[in-house]
């Protein structure tokens, strides 16, 4: 009886744990996710004015940081995902970029021709599907992001220019990829992993997490040493 009770209690705790795990949400992230789903109407015609004119226009209009309402974006537009979806969304700190660049026209380079439209509009209003035969010179949203971000990061020598600097690749489903017998021993599993990830295996063997020691560049008197760490010389009082 007691056993049974114990079992039920355990189950309840487990259930509760699962529930709370599902209930927990990061509020800012959820909000950004919702916003990322929006697809805005396509702007067919844009005003092709010089960037300098654009900038002066924005400055004259008094657009400032206070007008930046959207602090944070998750670049996860369905337009991009409908073709290929290999990467996890990019976090984009909009307001921080606005503050650092201090020139909205750097990104908001054109404006819609419609006079009633906002001075600045979303990237995805003009840049949507790539290779649109009706607008052959208009680059798609994915390319627009990459060209804009990477070009500027390179120019300013700031911010990541490599793929994983901004987003992680989706991990492919390993259900089919992993070929293992039932109840494999650890050696078999390691072998299976190394079949594809051999360089990663080599890399792993050189890391501090594997060796429990490594370089100690921030320890006075030992800055060139490579042997310190928990596995060798580190001391503690707990």
């Amino acid at each position, binding site marked *: 009886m007691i056993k049974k009770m114990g079992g039920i209690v355990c189950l309840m705790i487990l259930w509760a744990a699962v529930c709370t795990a599902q209930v927990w949400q990061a509020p800012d992230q959820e909000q950004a996710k919702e916003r990322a789903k929006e697809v805005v109407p396509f702007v067919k015609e844009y005003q092709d004015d010089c960037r300098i004119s654009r900038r002066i226009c924005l400055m004259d209009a008094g657009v400032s940081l206070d007008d930046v309402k959207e602090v944070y974006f998750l670049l996860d537009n369905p337009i991009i995902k409908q073709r290929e979806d290999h990467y996890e969304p990019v976090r984009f700190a909009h*307001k*921080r970029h606005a*503050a650092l660049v201090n020139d909205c026209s750097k990104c908001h380079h054109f404006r819609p021709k419609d006079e009633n439209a906002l001075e600045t509009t979303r990237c995805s209003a003009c840049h949507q599907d790539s290779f649109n035969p009706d607008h052959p010179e208009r680059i798609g949203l994915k390319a627009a992001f990459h060209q804009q971000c990477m070009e500027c990061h390179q120019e300013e020598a700031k911010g990541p220019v490599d793929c994983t*600097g901004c987003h992680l690749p989706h991990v492919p489903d390993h259900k089919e990829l992993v070929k293992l017998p039932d109840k494999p021993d*650890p050696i078999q599993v390691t072998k299976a992993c190394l079949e594809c990830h051999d360089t990663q295996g080599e890399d792993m063997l050189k890391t501090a997490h594997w060796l429990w020691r490594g*370089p100690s560049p*921030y320890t*006075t008197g*030992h800055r060139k040493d490579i042997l310190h760490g928990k596995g060798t010389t580190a001391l503690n*009082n707990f």
Partner: protein
Amino acid sequence: MPKKDVDLKHVAQNVGHSSRATCGACHFNGGGGDAIKHADMSRQLLTPDRNCDIHMGGYDFDCAECHKTRNHQIAGKSSSVPVAEGVVSCEKCHSDTPHYSGGLLDHHLNDHSRTLACNVCHAPVFAKCKPTKTWWDWSKAGDKNREVKKDKYGQPDYNWKKGEFKWEESGVPDYTWYAGYMDRVLMGDKVDLNADVINLTNPVGSIHDPLSKITAFKIMKGIQAVDADHDYILVPHLFPKDKDDATAFWKHRDWEKAFQAGMKEVGLPYSGAYKWKETWMYWRVNHEVMPAEMALSCVQCHESLKGDQTCNRCHQDNRDIDFKAIAHKGTDFSYMKSMGRDVDHLIEKTDYINFKALGYKGDPIIHGGRFKKLPMGYKAPAD
């Protein structure tokens, strides 16, 4: 080797990116349990409250998003151990001028960024989500009969295996100058037996060094054994290796044997005489960054701004600006208290940072900063 009942096939078929859970499986449990070692990391971070940690709780960051890896080497330098494979800094993302609210304070705050580590203001208390150990007296260990008491957080004050503890929640960090480097006592290093306290890790920095910043630390204090003749820290053998282990402290409760075996294991001679000494370790407070609106306010450090005269000592602005409100804007400890945190003692506190201890003559608003003496027209009070 993994536990027998782990279905490795299932594991292999479900590999993916690391998460807070995977990293936390080890790092949240440092020191032998949840939240014990690190001041700012606990299992609370698996599903953190937004106010507890804005990055993880607000934006759902995973560890590896800041601790970028290259060839499986994970960036980040630990305060406790020497090894580092790259550095993570707030500035990398937030830049050297991270304040851009557009408000009147931005300029002053960005100025502060040159002297203060971000977490001084943005994580003003450590262990805000869960109490952490701050005192650990090994010399008391071994008494299986001692009655274990619970403190106000419900944490035990004693464990016969480990000794006597103290716990702290929402603790005020210690502040010291730090330039990114640590002095460390490593295995076999001589220590001063006559000193009151031996610092196993000690931040390097100076008020005169422009690259040093005031940085928040939790100090892990404790008492541990030192070889009385060789003057180095002793390493005891604690975990019994197997059933026949004849020396492990957690089996035989004999320090003498435990030291002999432990030092043999690490290959250093043991004189046979040991001494209990107080040792400190500095642990930098890096995580549990609070939302911007909960940062310390000006007045919490600068007592000079507490009265009616605040910014208008210098700024004769005739616009309708409430300087006082600006100076007081910041963490509301009473709000934190209402959320169940033990921050009673911090409400109304205005000497959050002990300027004198840091080498200032006093509040820099009155006495001038470390490199700039503001001609405020006030005569500094005699020391």
